[in-house]
């Protein structure tokens, strides 16, 4: 599974990346939304984990732009202090979840697994309906 992790705190992304790698998740990390836009335009990711509060372009603005680049891209938002209003706004903009820091790695990996399963099932249905192929 290929994940893009976007958070302006280098120390945080370093250690969270290490923990994800241990769980056999292929993770690329960047410290700004601008870098993330460039990567999403060039490469394909299974999901993006995006910090809500970042300098220059904040998480919600970044989410909007990422969804414009790839509307099907699943995005999970990370926040220090989740508010209901921000959560609702994020969901309206297409985020699939909002997770509060400190991150519970089990919760995060479960959510990523679910995204992966849904993606596989979506592709299986699409291949079956368009080509009559059965994915094993």
């Amino acid at each position: 599974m290929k994940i893009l992790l976007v958070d302006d705190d280098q120390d945080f992304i370093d250690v969270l990346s290490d923990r994800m790698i241990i769980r056999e998740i292929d993770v690329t990390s960047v410290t700004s939304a601008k870098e993330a836009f460039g990567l999403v335009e060039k490469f394909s990711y299974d999901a993006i984990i995006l910090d809500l509060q970042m300098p220059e372009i904040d998480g919600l603005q970044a989410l909007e732009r990422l969804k414009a680049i790839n509307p099907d891209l699943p995005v999970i938002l990370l926040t220090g202090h989740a508010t209901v209003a921000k959560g609702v706004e994020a969901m309206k903009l297409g985020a699939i979840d909002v997770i509060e820091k400190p991150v519970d790695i089990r919760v995060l990996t479960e959510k990523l697994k679910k995204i992966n399963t849904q993606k596989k099932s979506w592709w299986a249905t699409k291949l079956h309906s368009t080509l009559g192929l059965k994915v094993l």
Partner: protein
Amino acid sequence: MISILGSANTLGLFFFGSMSASMSHEIKNALAIINEHAGLLDDLVRLSEKGKPLSTDRLKSLSANIGRQVQRADNIVGRLNRFAHSARQPVITTDTKEIFEFTAALVDRLASMNSVTITVGMDVEVPMQVRPFVLENLLWVCLKTMFSMISGPHSIEFKAKKKDSDVAIIIQFDEGVPVEMIGVHAAQEGQPLLIALRAVMSPDVQNNSITLTMPRKFEE
């Protein structure tokens, strides 16, 4: 007078809330990193139990990282504590440079979120009698107004100089900042603080700056 004090107190409460929210967010970020390090240590122990050797260099590095994050959180708590005490501090004689440096540290994260760099440019001491919290609050009103009116990276320099019996506090902006608009809005919002400090705010479009002129000696 009561309504002016009331408005100054309301502005003070907003200021206190904004700074406390920002600093508690910073503390939470440091705690989140400590939490991930604890989790990573746990992951490494589990892997070692399954036969993967545990690198002592890795452990040393993780331990050093945790120490750095504890230090980071401790610095923020120290700043928050000093700020909380300053809210009930009376008029004191202090160097303006000290107030600038503390304000810059207080708003550092919020400035960085808005791509603004704040520096203090003073070689000589300019002492004044003031309630530090009220002056910090007025500087915050100017900064907050600026943040809402700019996009892209900018820089600010705080300076002060003696001017007869007054002190002139200069907020020096770089090019491309709408100084006049900031001056008008900040003076409007910060009016109760200007009155409390007996200060006058004058935007200088030619020099990209706003000057706050107020007495060096505060008489009740």
